[in-house]
């Protein structure tokens, strides 16, 4: 398997002196021998059905012989078959060879389309094919799909401007829940030392808001809807649709960032709420779009581990997720197994926190998503969940997270989040 770390990819992108042009894109593809050896390696002893291997070999040969129509057709069949295999059994049990095959199939399809359509007429489709490979597959040949995307980015047509709504007056920071209840607050620290952070937050298992640590991020100067649209408008991302992930109507829809902004973030053309309910949640956007990665910085605190670990590589071991959506997105009350630093970049979020000792009063679900509470925290059913009220009064901590602040959430600490404005947050799990 081709190893490819974030660091290597970033270095590659930074050092690219000779950018390939559209017509030379096929030069990115390894030679036939290497392609066939790769297929052999990833399918060996993997119970891959023979017909699929035959098709893979056919595609390796036809792309090397520049038979692009054949490559496109076979590539398409490979993508369809592999997609079926990715849906057999649970996602976590899927053998990584299928992820690699999916990426390889996307590569075949993308290159063929680029070579067959000189007039760039299919550029959005090509961009989408590459994105599907990036989203669903695993990096191969030095993250070749991202290299292709760099070429494609240069040729993408101007994307329609998005008009940004003005924020209707700034609301002062407040801890008033609005429901008449007075709630406790969290601790606020300004640039604590590593030691203080470890002692007061991680070891003490106490959430806290940290100020003054992310001011240097370019994101604070650059990020708005227009910037996102310009940087990544054509890119396909998985958007959560439906009100929240605990609801029956929840699903994921693939759409471009431009479409997401227009349909789910901006108000509808006639005014009022956005056309559709959607939230770009828990997505590794910064892996997919490396240009955005340079707008943020992993907080130093992520280097602190509570276990004795030598050579802890921050880039490898920290999960960075983007949370981008309109006002009103809700993450139902749940807990995560890792330490979390949630950085607020754009907009404000209302957050309620409960220690893990409150678990019984939060009535965790009994199905697969058992890290999630059954209680609707802002509108609890006291008859169905009688223990909740007292736990809420005694133990709930509430805050409104402002741009420039980051919230530390200890592992297994329950948290509920609702956005008060169009919001962009970045979370770091380690």
């Amino acid at each position, binding site marked *: 398997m081709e190893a490819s770390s974030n660091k290597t990819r970033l270095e590659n992108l930074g050092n690219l002196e000779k950018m390939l042009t559209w017509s030379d894109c096929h030069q990115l593809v390894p030679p036939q021998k290497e392609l066939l050896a790769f297929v052999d390696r990833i399918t060996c002893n993997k119970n891959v*059905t023979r017909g699929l291997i*035959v098709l893979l070999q056919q595609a390796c040969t036809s792309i090397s012989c520049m038979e692009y129509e054949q490559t496109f057709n076979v590539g398409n069949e490979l993508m*369809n078959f592999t997609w079926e295999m990715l849906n057999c059994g649970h996602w976590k049990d899927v053998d990584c060879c299928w992820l690699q095959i999916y990426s390889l199939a996307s590569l075949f399809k993308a290159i063929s389309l680029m070579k067959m359509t000189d007039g760039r007429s299919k550029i959005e489709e090509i961009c989408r094919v590459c994105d599907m490979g990036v989203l669903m597959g695993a990096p191969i040949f030095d993250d070749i799909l991202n290299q292709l995307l760099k070429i494609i980015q240069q040729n993408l047509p101007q994307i329609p401007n998005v008009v940004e709504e003005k924020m209707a007056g700034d609301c002062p920071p407040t801890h008033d829940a609005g429901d008449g209840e007075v709630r406790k607050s969290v601790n606020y620290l300004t640039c604590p030392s590593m030691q203080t952070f470890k002692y007061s937050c991680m070891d003490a298992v106490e959430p806290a808001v940290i100020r003054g640590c992310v001011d240097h991020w370019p994101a604070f100067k650059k990020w708005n809807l227009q910037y996102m649209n310009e940087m990544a408008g054509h890119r396909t991302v998985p958007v959560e649709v439906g009100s929240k992930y605990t609801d029956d109507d929840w699903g994921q829809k693939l759409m471009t960032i431009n479409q997401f902004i227009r349909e789910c973030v901006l108000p509808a053309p006639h005014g009022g709420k956005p056309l559709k309910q959607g939230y770009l949640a828990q997505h590794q956007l910064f892996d997919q779009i490396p240009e955005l990665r340079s707008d943020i910085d992993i907080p130093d605190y992520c280097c602190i581990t509570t276990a004795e670990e030598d050579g802890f590589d921050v880039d490898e071991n920290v999960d960075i997720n983007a949370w981008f959506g309109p006002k009103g997105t809700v993450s139902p009350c749940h807990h995560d197994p890792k330490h979390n630093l949630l950085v607020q970049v754009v907009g404000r979020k209302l957050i309620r926190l409960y220690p893990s000792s409150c678990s019984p009063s939060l009535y965790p679900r009994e199905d697969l998503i058992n890290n999630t509470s059954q209680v609707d925290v802002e509108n609890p059913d006291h008859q169905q969940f009688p223990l909740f009220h007292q736990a809420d009064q005694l133990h709930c901590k509430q805050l409104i997270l402002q741009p420039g602040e980051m919230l530390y959430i200890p592992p297994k600490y329950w948290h509920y989040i609702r956005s008060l404005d169009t919001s962009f947050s970045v979370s770091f799990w380690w």
Partner: protein
Amino acid sequence: MLKRHEPSPVCEKKDIYAFGYNGFGQFMISQSRKTLPPIHLLQTKLNKLQVTWSSITWMKDKSIHIRGLFGENPSSHKSFIVDVNSEKMKCSCYHHDTLFVLTSKKKLYFFNNITSHENNDKLTPGRVEENVLDFVVNESINQLSVVYESWGVKHFKIGEDSLQLEKHFSCAIKVKQLSCGNSHNLLLSADGHVFSWGMGSRGQLGHGDLISQETPKLIEILDMIRVTSVACGGWHNLALSDTQDIYTWGWNCSGQTGLPAPSGVFSTSVNNKKEGGESCGIIPSPTLLQLETYCLHREDDNFISITSIACGAKHSAAATSDGCLFTWGWAEHGQLAHECCLSGSCDVSLSHLPAIVPWFGKEKLKVVEVKCGWWSTLASSEEEFDSVNTKTKHKTAAE
């Protein structure tokens, strides 16, 4: 319009037409990776033909024919004579290096290493399994599933050189039919009950939830009706009742259940509301499929009666008592043959609602029975009773 007929007995030889995926030359030797419009494949009884993703296997007299991918070679056509102890062959299927043949004496013969044999060789069996009622080969996952009389079910992994028993359980069900999908299975009992087991996360088990089951569990919602046949697709199912109605359940990402599918959404929605055009990604309980909704120009107001059902990976097919063929679901490889697919006017990656395949009516053919390959559809048919015009001679692709 087609006239009403009594359904013909399906035990006679009929013309078999095929359409859909041809990437391995299994339907016709040509550059075309898709067979559209339908072609005449051969004349046989449909149950003598098995279709997987990359090949087709059929029996003729004492020989077994294989077309498509054979070993590592696509566009192959091989035939072999098999020694099954002079027993009558019921069905056979080829996969990788093995030919499986089930006889009327309930014996399943395994002919191994056939790829090392010459064409027309006589093959002698290796292993023989006894008391076998039915078997299914799932090419995608290299699986052989076998159901034994008064014993139970075994799932084997067809490996490079061997057959490994993966899962087995006993069940005291008197079995009529076994059907297997990519990650789930159905058993139809002789008295018309349906049992399901395997992965449940796409609603494919039909118990109204998304829970997986290790062993066969009765589908209670179907208990009130008597089911005469079942069909398992990749992640969806059809069941045919003795009143000739279709029930459908499972994953609906491509509209394969026949109910409206959400567009572009990978949905785990289990909402079963169908009024107001609401679509569902998953149908967790068997639901009556009313094909009348999709029939625009029916002459009479009678309900549609279904005589035959079949499922592929993400598509379905059903034959009606008056000889029409409905298909629905995923259209990308030509497996639906709707008007829009033939004229190239549709987006084949989008889900297609049920529609009659017009080609058969135009050719004055009455569809009697239907079967699906993974990405293809086959129909056995006969000429319309009152067809007076000279029929166009169909170039027979096989034989």
